[in-house]
């Protein structure tokens, strides 16, 4: 279904924990360890990934979300999951993923980046199908949507190296831009494929763009290829919106520039600067926003009444009074029980806004 109508939608921001503390929630972990020992096959791992993806989707439905993701259960990390499927990339050692205590495998680009097959299209198709097989709550029939997530071209490029000349911090802006544009070409094709498969809203994660602000022009030029892909799809009569998400840093210094981006929805992390909400309440937004008001990096559960107050003051200031309330980033940085509690909190916020008695407890 489309979420393009006015209103407040409850939305996942991407990842969901792959394991929990119970035996059944450690299926994927056990299966991968058994694969390493030679006791299971890659087919067994695929089965385990499928099962944990179904569970991640079921948790989101149970929590009352409107916009759901596959939880990125199959992702080794947000960088190598894409880069490793492209031609002329090899995967190097581990690097810290922004300011998290999570590590990604760094890609090294040693030739022309070529997309020779789907990157996340098959995963998206599986997730849509899995969602379709779940019993849907009565009031949600036909209202749930599955959102594919891709890591943006600038973030992929910034987290990669090039050979022979590129070496991260020391490389030229031209080399970085060439890599970003090459990733973007591959991702533009992926966006077209996702739209063909039925996606109407695609989330593009670009945390690096607000960390390395001096590269903003490169980020914009790389994003332009994705925007062009969207325009072509929309021009052909299909429905497609691009949502660009920024997190892991205060985006306030770039707020005006962010709003000028030619995308449909902007996702913002509100946890790094409490004044960001005040600013939006004062200045408004000419685009629908994804409100990352729920801290995806800390277990402390927010007060739903405070969140409801925030949403109530922000929503009228947002164009079309359309917003997506969700976690500030993917939830895989939290233990699974806390991640679910954060999702359940989103629905409590909506109930508080509707005046449901006892919603805040």
């Amino acid at each position: 279904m489309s979420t393009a109508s006015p209103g407040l939608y409850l939305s996942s921001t991407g990842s969901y924990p792959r394991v929990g503390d119970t035996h059944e929630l450690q299926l994927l972990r056990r299966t991968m360890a058994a694969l390493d020992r030679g006791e299971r096959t890659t087919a067994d791992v695929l089965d385990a990934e499928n099962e944990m993806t179904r569970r991640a989707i079921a948790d989101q439905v149970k929590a009352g979300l409107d916009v759901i993701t596959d939880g990125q259960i199959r992702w080794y990390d947000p960088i190598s999951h894409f880069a490793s499927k492209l031609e002329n990339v090899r995967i190097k050692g581990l690097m810290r993923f922004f300011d998290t205590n999570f590590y990604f495998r760094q890609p090294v680009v040693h030739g022309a980046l070529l997309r020779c097959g789907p990157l996340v299209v098959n995963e998206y198709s599986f997730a849509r199908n899995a969602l379709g097989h779940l019993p849907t709550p009565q009031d949600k029939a036909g209202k749930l949507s599955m959102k594919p997530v891709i890591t943006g071209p600038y973030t992929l490029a910034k987290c990669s190296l090039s050979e022979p000349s590129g070496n991260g911090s020391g490389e030229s802006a031209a080399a970085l831009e060439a890599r970003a544009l090459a990733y973007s070409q591959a991702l533009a094709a992926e966006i077209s494929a996702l739209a063909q498969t039925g996606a109407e809203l695609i989330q593009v994660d670009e945390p690096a763009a607000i960390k390395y602000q001096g590269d903003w022009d490169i980020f914009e030029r790389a994003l332009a290829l994705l925007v062009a892909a969207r325009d072509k799809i929309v021009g052909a009569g299909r429905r497609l919106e691009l949502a660009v998400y920024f997190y892991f840093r205060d985006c306030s210094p770039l707020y005006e520039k962010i709003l000028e981006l030619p995308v449909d929805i902007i996702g913002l992390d509100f946890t790094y600067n409490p004044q960001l909400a005040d600013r939006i309440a004062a200045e408004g937004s000419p685009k629908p926003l994804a409100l990352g008001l729920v801290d995806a990096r800390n277990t402390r559960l927010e007060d739903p009444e405070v969140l409801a107050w925030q949403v109530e003051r922000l929503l009228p200031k947002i164009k079309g009074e359309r917003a997506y309330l969700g976690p500030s980033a993917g939830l895989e940085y939290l233990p699974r029980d806390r991640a679910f509690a954060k999702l359940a909190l989103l629905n409590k916020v909506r109930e508080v806004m509707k005046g449901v008695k006892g919603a805040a407890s």
Partner: protein
Amino acid sequence: MSRQKLEQLGLDLPLFPTTSVGSFPKPDYLVKARADFNKQKIPQARLEELERQATAFWIETQEKLGIDVLVDGEQYRGDMVAYFAERMPGFTEGGLVRSYGNRYYHKPIITEEVQWPGPVTVDWWKFAQSLTKKPVKGMLTGAYTIMDWSFNEHYSDRRATALALAQVIRKEVEALVAAGCKIIQIDEPALSVRPEELPIAIEAMDATTAGLGAYFITHACYGAFEYIYPGMLDLAVDNFDLEMSNSDLHMLELFRSHPFTKDISFGVVDVHTHVLEDQDAVRRRIEQALSILPKDQIWVDPDCGLKTRTVDEAIDKLRLCVAAAKAFRN
């Protein structure tokens, strides 16, 4: 400056002292024992017996290899933050979160004011030191990293959390110093994750070490040091133990632009690969270090803890470090 401090502490170390970052792989019998203990199949006393056996093995191994400053190998630890959090009132064990790939850990949650429960690492240090005449490092995790790698449901903000933890870690440092430990490593691998918070990390380390009589090392790795250098040199330690090889010695370029004013434990072997570097590669890394840093500032060690390698791989990598250091001494 720091070499003078070492001498004042009665430590006579050669040029290019060799050491390790901290963790060593656990022998198979200990891995099994830890699993059995978690399933309540063996008592704690039996587990500790095997942990001591493994610690003794690593002390003996380091001595045989000719390492100058030893570590206990952290055979009694799992995660470097959870180990302390499990022993300090104020923390609650959180559920599993992913570190990378298929590796997960229990990320602690601060739910109350954190308190020092009495010596946490001192008995292990005493045991390890009793097995050798060479200095054994005391091994702690820094307040900033414990803060960053924990969830916080108690303190008002990150600075308040780090400073509260610094007071707790300081008490452990004091206990190590009182026990006779002269070289104390306080790991801060989270040091560079939020460059804007470097002042908090510096404030916390100062609160941890100021005025205490030991040679202090901090280990940091896998970070964007270009954003915190040279400011990081204000950290109240004598020696930075840095992962250099995994990043192709990129940090040396930073040292060219601003002199590195502390001692450095220079990571000369990559710990995240099964591949054993050849001697020439390690020699070239030290030569590159010497092109920028004075020789009496350089210590030689692996990039990071070796716990993810096999026992044999770890020994081979340590042997390589020692051989390279000895070659340069000569």
